[in-house]
């Protein structure tokens, strides 16, 4: 690995700590210090291969857009320990990945696999889904309001509404939604004892990797059956596209197809859930912003965008340098591993005015919460539309909102957001 500025050991431990992301303040403090003192430095936390922590907005964008120079798939695309990496490679015939979705692919496969479903997620197609998504939003708003004057906005609304939307797009029946939610939370909440498969706080490597691979196996078993069904009875849903899709005239590689379902069935709702929950939390803490939005609902699009920046549900992805490179004047060697710290980029003082303030009318608001470059989030247009519709249906009905307890975030350094947001509300 190239030599370069070293990150303070305690900060290096903080930026990989699931608890620090759950607590919020420690992670914001750590990244604030890094942006100031070591914006592109080498972190060497115990048990991990050393990696570069990329913390500034411009540098994250630079790495993200140079997809040939910085690969997703050469090493693990998500931060992992040396021991876990070794175990995964032993299980997966040398591959560092438990799944092979768009996230783990590089070109030419990435482009070919992305194009398979891209048209489904383009603005002109999801526009056709708006009436049905609005019905779903109304259903969950009605359920929330029927609860009286309090609810847990994360559990009662934010977890369930985007789940219903993506499951309908995939063609998964409503009766299977609890299973899909549970498996998703096991996958992304692997470090959180309230979410993971074992219910334990400190799992050893074998148990941790084992639990995730069991979750993946359960997903694969489920989507094998969906594949068989859609090959026999194709429908107008994304599962039929995956089941019957071809790349270069051949059916999709089975493992890649299963991984495609898994990424759609998990990332397709979890990040929107986290963002919606955090957005409502933010409004509860900022009555002036709630009032501003209520007085001018034309701000709903910028409220959604600010929520996406504010939450930054995906905290990082890793990239591997395919050749010697230079980023912000720093030499990066071929094979170096880089952590793209999206939350830090979205709080970069050199890019955002008052980045630690939640502003429903923030403009401009160019952020990196969806990534950038070829791997930019496939579902970003759907996510924005879902949230816009939810707020259009809910906010006009509310007179006041406030927290009715202490919100809690999931413990995760990868995909992280609120798991509980107790709120009290009054109606107009």
């Amino acid at each position, binding site marked *: 690995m190239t030599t370069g500025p070293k990150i303070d050991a305690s900060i290096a431990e903080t930026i990989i700590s699931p608890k620090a992301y759950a607590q919020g303040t420690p992670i914001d403090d750590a990244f604030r210090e890094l942006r100031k003192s070591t914006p592109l430095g080498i972190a060497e936390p115990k048990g991990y291969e050393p990696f570069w922590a990329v913390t500034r907005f411009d540098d994250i964008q630079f790495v993200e857009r140079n997809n040939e120079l910085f690969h997703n798939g050469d090493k693990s695309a998500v931060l992992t320990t040396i021991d876990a990496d070794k175990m995964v490679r032993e299980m997966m015939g040398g591959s560092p990945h438990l799944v092979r979705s768009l996230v783990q692919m590089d070109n030419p496969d990435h482009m070919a696999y992305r194009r398979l479903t*891209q048209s489904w997620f383009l*603005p002109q197609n999801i526009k056709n889904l708006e009436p049905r998504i609005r019905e779903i939003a109304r259903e969950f708003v009605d359920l929330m309001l029927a609860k009286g004057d309090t609810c847990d906005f994360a559990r009662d609304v934010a977890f369930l509404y985007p789940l219903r939307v993506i499951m309908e797009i995939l063609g998964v029946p409503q009766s299977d939604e609890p299973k899909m939610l549970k498996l998703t939370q096991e996958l992304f909440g692997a470090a959180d004892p309230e979410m993971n498969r074992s219910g334990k706080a400190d799992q050893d490597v074998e148990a941790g990797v084992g639990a995730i691979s069991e979750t993946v196996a359960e997903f694969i078993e489920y989507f094998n059956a969906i594949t068989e069904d859609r090959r026999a009875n194709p429908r107008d849903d994304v599962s039929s596209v995956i089941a019957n899709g071809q790349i270069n005239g051949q059916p999709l590689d089975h493992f890649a197809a299963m991984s495609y379902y898994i990424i759609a069935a998990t990332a397709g709702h979890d990040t929107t859930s986290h963002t919606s929950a955090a957005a409502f939390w933010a409004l509860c803490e900022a009555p002036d912003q709630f009032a501003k939005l209520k007085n001018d609902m034309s701000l709903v699009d910028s409220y959604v965008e600010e929520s996406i920046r504010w939450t930054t549900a995906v905290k990082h992805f890793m990239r591997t340098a395919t050749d010697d490179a230079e980023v912000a004047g720093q030499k990066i060697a071929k094979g170096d591993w880089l952590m793209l710290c999206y939350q830090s980029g979205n709080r970069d003082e050199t890019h955002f005015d008052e980045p630690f303030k939640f502003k429903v009318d923030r403009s401009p608001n*160019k952020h990196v919460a*969806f990534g950038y*470059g*070829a791997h930019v989030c496939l579902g970003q247009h759907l996510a924005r539309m879902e949230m816009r519709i939810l707020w259009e249906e809910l906010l006009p009905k509310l007179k006041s909102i406030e927290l009715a307890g202490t919100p809690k975030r999931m413990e995760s350094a990868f995909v992280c957001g609120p798991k509980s947001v107790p709120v009290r509300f009054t109606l107009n």
Partner: protein
Amino acid sequence: MSENAFKTWQCRTCGYIYDEEAGDPMEGLAPGTRWADIPDDWECPLCGTPKSDFDMVEL
């Protein structure tokens, strides 16, 4: 469609839509800015794809 009618262009990578009629004020492109008047080095605001990798689309 008349030759002078406003047109829409879409990014091949991420699906961002540039509508000449609406422009994109956040990008400094006023409503009515024609695609041909956008500099060649302009990039998709959502993913950085170059202007040359946009397609004209009818919505």
